[in-house]
């Protein structure tokens, strides 16, 4: 007999090539090997990843557990106030020992055999390292223990490189990564600093979603100024985001990060609402407190700035609502989307209430954001069943460049230009 009686020799449909930034094949979103390579090259090497805000661990000893890519890490403030990020994996037999999302510790103790680490991840204690004393045939001797040449320095927790800016903590498994400021890039830095300008932050709380879609689809979503005025009724109707607004699209030199910057207008009917079914001419709020926008001085004009930092962070300023949104991949077909809403320590009670009210627009149930998770899940459905398809991102042409308007998919093309570069062997 011949091989065919046993198994197909090749996969059937030829894999679509990825040769144009504006035509993205479905395997980019579904292939487990591609995903594995993303973890290595985009999350664990050469990039800074978001891990949290300093305001989440205000006290000495405070820690937060989170994920960087798929690996469990702990952001912790030591007794000197220094912030460390260490991997949540005992060097002995690998137990992910930390089981709480938040807490306070003087040291880390792994439950299995009580190996102990300081908050910087250095191994500080190994029970019975020198064996136990016993009397054998009347002679006191030492039994067991670690070998004489056991070097605790070789067996600490994985220590990540840490960078902080404006109260935001980034970390990298790669100690050779470029400096954070260089990584963010000159065009993006001022927009980052606009939000995190050094004021003390106040954590308002968390929202968590598991979205059954590839993580990049959410990056695309926040690099897509075309959709908000079409998908989101509230945006187009109340003028929070629509095609007739002044807007700017800004990227770093690598085109991996981006800022979508816009200024609210009056809403209502106009050229950009014709035929747009999501525009609701007669929609009026029963309780307008849901959209009681009050401009803040630090905005300096724009009412909305959405920043995507590659690979794992979105920074949201939507009028008075502020959040970081942390992407934590769970295989190629899903990711956890963790929202940390915050305000500033010097906010008035009224402003805090306002931020909380506007939070009704965002997160898994938000009047606006619930849609986004839904549509990208529906795209992932298509991708899983369609090996031969490519998506299209040719609005405003095929080039990659900053723009002064929002009728463009340039930011998406920019991200895939970078992705192709880094992911190519």
């Amino acid at each position, binding site marked *: 007999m011949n091989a065919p009686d046993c198994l197909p020799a090749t996969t059937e449909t030829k894999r679509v090539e990825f040769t144009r930034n504006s035509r993205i094949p479905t395997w980019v979103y579904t292939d487990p090997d591609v995903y594995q390579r993303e973890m290595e090259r985009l999350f664990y090497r050469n990039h800074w990843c978001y891990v949290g805000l300093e305001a989440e661990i205000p006290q000495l000893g405070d820690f937060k557990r989170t994920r960087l890519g798929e690996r469990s890490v702990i952001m912790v403030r030591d007794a000197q106030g220094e912030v460390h990020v260490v991997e949540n994996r005992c060097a002995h037999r690998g137990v992910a020992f930390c089981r709480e999302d938040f807490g306070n510790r003087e040291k880390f103790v792994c439950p299995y055999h009580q190996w102990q680490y300081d908050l910087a991840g250095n191994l500080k204690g190994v029970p019975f390292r020198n064996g136990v004393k016993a009397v054998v045939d009347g002679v006191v001797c030492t039994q067991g223990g670690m070998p004489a040449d056991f070097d605790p320095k070789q067996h600490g927790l994985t220590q990540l490189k840490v960078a902080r800016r404006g109260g935001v903590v980034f970390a990298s498994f790669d100690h050779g990564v470029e400096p954070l400021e260089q990584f963010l890039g000159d065009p993006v830095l001022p927009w980052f600093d606009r939000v995190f300008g050094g004021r003390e932050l106040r954590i308002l709380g968390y*929202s*968590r979603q598991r979205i059954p879609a590839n993580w990049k689809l959410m990056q695309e979503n926040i690099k897509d100024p075309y959709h908000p005025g079409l998908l989101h009724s509230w945006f187009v109707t109340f003028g929070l985001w629509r095609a007739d607004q002044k807007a700017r699209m800004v990227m770093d030199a690598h085109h991996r990060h981006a800022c979508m910057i816009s200024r609210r207008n009056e809403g209502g009917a106009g050229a950009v609402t014709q035929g747009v079914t999501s525009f609701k001419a007669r929609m009026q709020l029963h309780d307008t407190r849901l959209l009681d926008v009050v401009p803040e001085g630090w905005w300096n004009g724009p009412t909305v700035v959405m920043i995507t930092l590659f690979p794992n962070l979105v920074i949201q300023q939507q009028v008075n609502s502020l959040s970081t949104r942390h992407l934590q991949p769970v295989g190629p077909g899903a990711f956890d989307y963790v929202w940390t809403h915050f305000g500033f320590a010097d906010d008035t009670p009224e402003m805090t209430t306002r931020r909380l009210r506007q939070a*009704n627009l965002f997160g898994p149930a938000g009047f606006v954001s619930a849609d986004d998770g839904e549509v990208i*899940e529906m795209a992932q459905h298509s991708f899983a069943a369609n090996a031969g398809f490519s998506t299209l991102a040719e609005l405003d042409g095929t080039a990659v460049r900053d723009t002064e308007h929002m009728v463009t998919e340039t930011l998406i093309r920019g991200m895939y230009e970078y992705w192709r570069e880094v992911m190519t062997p």
Partner: protein
Amino acid sequence: MRVTDTAGLSHHAAAPPPDPVLLASIIDLNARYASVVDDGPLDAWPDFFLEECIYRIQPRENFDRGLPLATLAFESRGMLKDRVYGVQETLFHDPYYQRHIVSVPRILSASDDGIRCVTNYVVVRTRRNELSSVYNAGRYLDWIVATSDGLKFRERIAVFDSELIPNSLIYPI
């Protein structure tokens, strides 16, 4: 005073058992509420509340840690109506069935000020062409008052364990 937690309450009251009439009213209220949010008409939902009311769906971690953020937080019947409009007209989402299984209520107190009770619930979600699954489990912290139009919620806070929401949450809990 708001219903916030049950700390400090006696769990083993030699207190008399709850009044059957009161219990029946609360069971009835919970059953009518579940029926409306599961099977409609959704327009009837805001009428379970006072004009001035609190309705909140809050992840347990925020509740436990004293963080104010909720998944949804409404402060008036008007806001509830805005939500109804959102669900019906503006929120694009994959349609799903939801089914509330409301457990037996625990009445904490009943006075002129109203009735405070806590009730466990679980919501099962079924999307078209998918298997049913546990969607949202938690407890209601309720403050109920009697009106000429029957019992109404002055406050209903759904504190949910299921913090990692399966994509989105559209319909009221």
